């Protein structure tokens, strides 16, 4: 069954060596596992002083491939809107991805509000990264955790924006269940499902199959681990298709 990966990256991760971090590695891992396309972001951009330089690198490797470019934005930097405008013009970006935990702001700050206004203006989806690696492993740098309350408030306040919640955990999804069901524009990816058995089965039973999209967080996470969570789930073929590609195809771009 074909799949689309809404949460994949290329580049360097400053906290450990990645063995498979080039775009060629990503294509290989995807093709070996039946994944036909992806929404890809630059790991380098998260940590560059000027993130746009990471975007230029990313564009050079993914242009003309069918992969979707998701622009990394730090809204606390001056003139971030200019980067978004240039990203639209130069890279035909499919969305904007943010990392509040790594960029030191909370979702109720004025800059996040300003970002949402820009996203509305250009009708761009927001890829909201709740976390990257498990927080317990980060002994070199401690990301600032996002509370479920601020995520809830942010989602409720910006319910008109297309939004993907990335690397969200099972319990967080269940806490946000009502708002997720009420908000047609909000989806979540599967990369954070790990804390129990039969995650996908339980979520399909609780929320249906229209809110979930497949995402790997590759190359930080094992791609097969995230993929098996969906492909080995005891759910209908129709639900599996929705999670693996129909939901993202219909709702993101």
């Amino acid at each position: 069954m074909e799949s689309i990966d809404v949460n994949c990256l290329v580049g360097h991760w400053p906290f450990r060596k990645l063995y498979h971090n080039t775009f060629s590695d990503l294509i290989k891992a995807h093709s070996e596992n039946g994944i036909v396309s992806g929404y890809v972001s630059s790991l380098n951009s998260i940590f560059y002083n000027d993130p746009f330089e990471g975007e230029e690198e990313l564009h050079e490797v993914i242009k003309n491939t069918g992969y979707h470019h998701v622009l990394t934005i730090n809204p606390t930097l001056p003139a971030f809107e200019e980067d978004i405008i240039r990203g639209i013009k130069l890279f035909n970006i499919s969305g904007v991805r943010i990392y509040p935990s790594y960029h030191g702001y909370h979702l109720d700050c004025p800059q996040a509000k300003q970002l949402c206004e820009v996203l509305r203006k250009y009708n761009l989806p927001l890829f909201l990264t709740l976390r990257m690696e498990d927080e317990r492993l980060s002994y070199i740098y401690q990301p600032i955790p996002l509370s479920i309350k601020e995520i809830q408030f942010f989602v409720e306040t910006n319910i008109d924006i297309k939004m993907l919640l990335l690397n969200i955990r099972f319990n967080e999804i269940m806490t946000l269940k009502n708002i997720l069901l009420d908000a047609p524009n909000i989806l979540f990816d599967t990369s954070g499902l790990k804390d129990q058995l039969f995650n996908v089965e339980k979520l399909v039973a609780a929320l249906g199959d229209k809110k979930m999209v497949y995402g790997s967080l590759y190359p930080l996470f094992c791609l097969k681990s995230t993929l098996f969570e969906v492909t080995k789930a005891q759910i209908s073929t129709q639900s599996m298709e929705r999670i693996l590609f129909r939901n993202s195809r219909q709702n993101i771009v």
Partner: protein
Amino acid sequence: MLIDIHAHLWNNKFKENKTEILKACEHYNIDKVYISSLGDQFPTEDEITKSNDETYKFMCEVPSLIGGFCYINPNHSSSLDALKKGIEDYNMSGMKLWIATYCDDPKVFPLVEKCIDYKVPILIHTFHKAIRHLEFESQGIHVAHLAKKYPEAKILMAHLGANCHREIKPIINFKNVSVDISGTIFRRDDVDYTKKLIGPERILFGSDMPGASFLVNYGQVEEANLTHREKELVYYKNAIKLLERS
């Protein structure tokens, strides 16, 4: 063949956990699961008895599928008796240490000596946390101390120590320490990195279910750069060797 060396029943959830574990075995073709029953960080003697009784009950219900590790709180003066009951009466396959003491606490030593006599492995929860680290939660360095003191002990360091880049190095030179991959950490390169440091002969498959997904752990082995022979080692041959009592 697949042996899951690390799974649990949790206090007050025994029935629910058993149902899920059996369902997982059926769906994912697991041949054998080794269980220990856990509850509070500092369980009382009664709680230890109850935990091990629950493990034994599960072993008796499905003997072909379920094996057991005897959970011990080394702070108890009765801990040697609890171990004796687990190994001799309940035919459990090893001892499980969690977070009641560091694994290199002198209170652990008589228990380790008994495990050496029994020729059974010691499964040690090992997890370095940058945040919310628990008092008495063992790390690679504690496991290394124990392994150095008791080179005849068969030690299984759980979870790759959580952050394998930090926790594997202390145990590299102690060939009596193997590791299991179980838990909720499933980073792409952790199994390859661990293989590079200690070789595939010292890596065992475990899931930590039902508090972790079996599939994210299975995916780690399937995706790692392991040959067919190396996968066999990880999935079951290393476990069989570790559990041998001859």
